[in-house]
């Protein structure tokens, strides 16, 4: 095997694998520190997430959200942008979905309402990303800082809208009324039932198909269109992109809109799929989770699907842990997210020098 070949193996496969493994080992150490047997915990976790129909349904349902936010972060990464604003874009995207699903004529067919409601999420998610994008491209304000600020603005805006505008008269809790029936995405167990198969009830709904569709679309867009090419060129080398006749400012704005739109789809799963109304903090944690998913999935849709599934397992399995064991809660998933971001992101190159030294030394004869 040539040295180039070995290097690409190390960078492409071995290194990410070791990074994820390290994050897992670190989590195991946390388990030991709090007096939980990590092997027992893993068994409970895996069984809870994959061991039975309902658990698997929940796992896939959580994974759907992570696919959306993971793709959002990844698309931005490809243009060299770090979108921390997934949390806010998902939140406001949900508002877009809700507005369509609340106020459209209830007599309309689902074939009209559902695409419109999805577009509402895409549009509002993109809108929430466009100001930070514009400020980054044309005024030089750092997108990380502005998207953080926009997360807080989103949460203030949503509290205001839910409390003062969308809350139904006489209701105490800040949530909207029910969406019109035509906007409800069917549950997977209902779909199966209509074909005569009986599976356990779970919140898993047809959003998962939307997630798969958009994963394919992102893959196609990034690697098989001239726009995807331009985005990747800007991300890899701004100067070379300018030389190649690409306008990085435009690309920044377009990419962030796509990224925000993808994050805005979280509402499809949570609101159209399960809750059928808009409520506070439905987006909680998925925006940041998306960063971990994107880093773990190496910003590639296939990797993101795998990573999202893994985080789905952790979310659902974590709930099971919560239930089964006294001294651990599902917040262990948050710890794990942090560790994944640390080892797959911040400490991405931890093992690189040592691996290169032993597996692909520079040949003396050349």
């Amino acid at each position, binding site marked *: 095997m040539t040295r*180039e070949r070995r*290097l*690409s193996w190390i960078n492409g496969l071995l290194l990410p694998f070791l990074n994820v493994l390290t994050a897992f080992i670190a989590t195991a150490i946390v388990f030991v520190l709090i007096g939980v047997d990590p092997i027992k915990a893993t068994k409970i976790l895996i069984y809870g997430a994959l061991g039975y129909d309902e658990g698997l349904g929940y796992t896939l349902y959580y994974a759907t959200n992570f696919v959306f936010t993971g793709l959002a972060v990844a698309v931005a990464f490809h243009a060299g942008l770090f979108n921390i604003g997934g949390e806010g874009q998902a939140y406001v995207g949900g508002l877009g979905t809700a507005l369509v699903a609340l106020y459209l004529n209830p007599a309309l067919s689902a074939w009209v309402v559902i695409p419109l409601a999805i577009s509402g999420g895409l549009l509002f998610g993109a809108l929430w990303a466009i100001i930070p994008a514009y400020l980054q491209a044309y005024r030089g304000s750092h997108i990380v800082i502005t998207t953080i600020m926009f997360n807080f603005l989103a949460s203030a805006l949503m509290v205001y809208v839910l409390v003062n505008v969308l809350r139904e008269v006489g209701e105490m809790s800040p949530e909207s009324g029910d969406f019109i029936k035509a906007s409800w995405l069917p549950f997977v167990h209902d779909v199966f039932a209509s074909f005569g198969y009986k599976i356990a009830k779970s919140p898993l709904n047809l959003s998962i198909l939307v997630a798969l569709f958009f994963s394919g679309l992102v893959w196609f867009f990034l*690697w*098989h*269109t*001239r726009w*995807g*090419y*331009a985005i*990747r*060129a800007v991300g*890899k*080398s701004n100067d*070379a*992109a300018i*030389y*190649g*006749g690409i306008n990085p400012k435009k690309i920044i704005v377009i990419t962030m809109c796509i990224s925000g739109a993808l994050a805005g789809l979280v509402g499809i799963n949570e609101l159209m799929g399960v809750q059928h109304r808009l409520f506070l903090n439905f987006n909680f944690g998925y925006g940041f989770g998306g960063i971990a998913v994107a880093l773990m999935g190496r910003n590639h849709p296939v990797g993101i699907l795998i990573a999202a599934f893994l985080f789905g397992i952790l979310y659902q399995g974590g709930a099971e842990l919560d239930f089964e064991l006294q001294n651990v809660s599902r917040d262990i998933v948050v710890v794990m997210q942090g560790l994944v971001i640390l080892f797959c992101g911040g400490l991405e190159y931890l093992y690189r020098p040592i691996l290169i030294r032993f597996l692909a030394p520079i040949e003396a004869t050349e």
Partner: protein
Amino acid sequence: MIAEFNASETALLGYHNDKNMNQGVWLKRALVKANCESIMEAFDVRPINPNLMSSNFSGGNQQKLILAREFERDPEVLIIGQPTRGVDIGAIEFIRKRIIDMRDAGKAIILISVELEEIMSLSDRIIVMCDGEITGTVNGDDADEATLGMMMANALQSDDELKGATL
């Protein structure tokens, strides 16, 4: 050049919007690869592997890949900076020959270089600049290192003192 792009993607830079590279929204990747392979062959870029990361080519081969990209497009005007820097001797001759061929085909080429010998052997006309101003223009055949050096230092009193200088 974009180090983290593979050779075929680097060879596409600047031309990704071309009509024949796209079919609707679809970027024709197979065509991009085939094109890359053929220009690599024409310019003797080694190894001929469009999937190899650009940064994994040697400096000389990277240089040849970039030149191949621009030369094979057959432009009317070409601005080249330091075309032979870091390239091995055989390739230098090859690149210089391609530049001359292009001139012979009636194309305008602006060559920017620090190597006086290269400039003198390739150019029809040499323009020397110093501090952002043109300090002299000579025909390639008439130029010698001393005059060019004087011009570069902006040390010529007047054009009359320069034998063979034309304005």
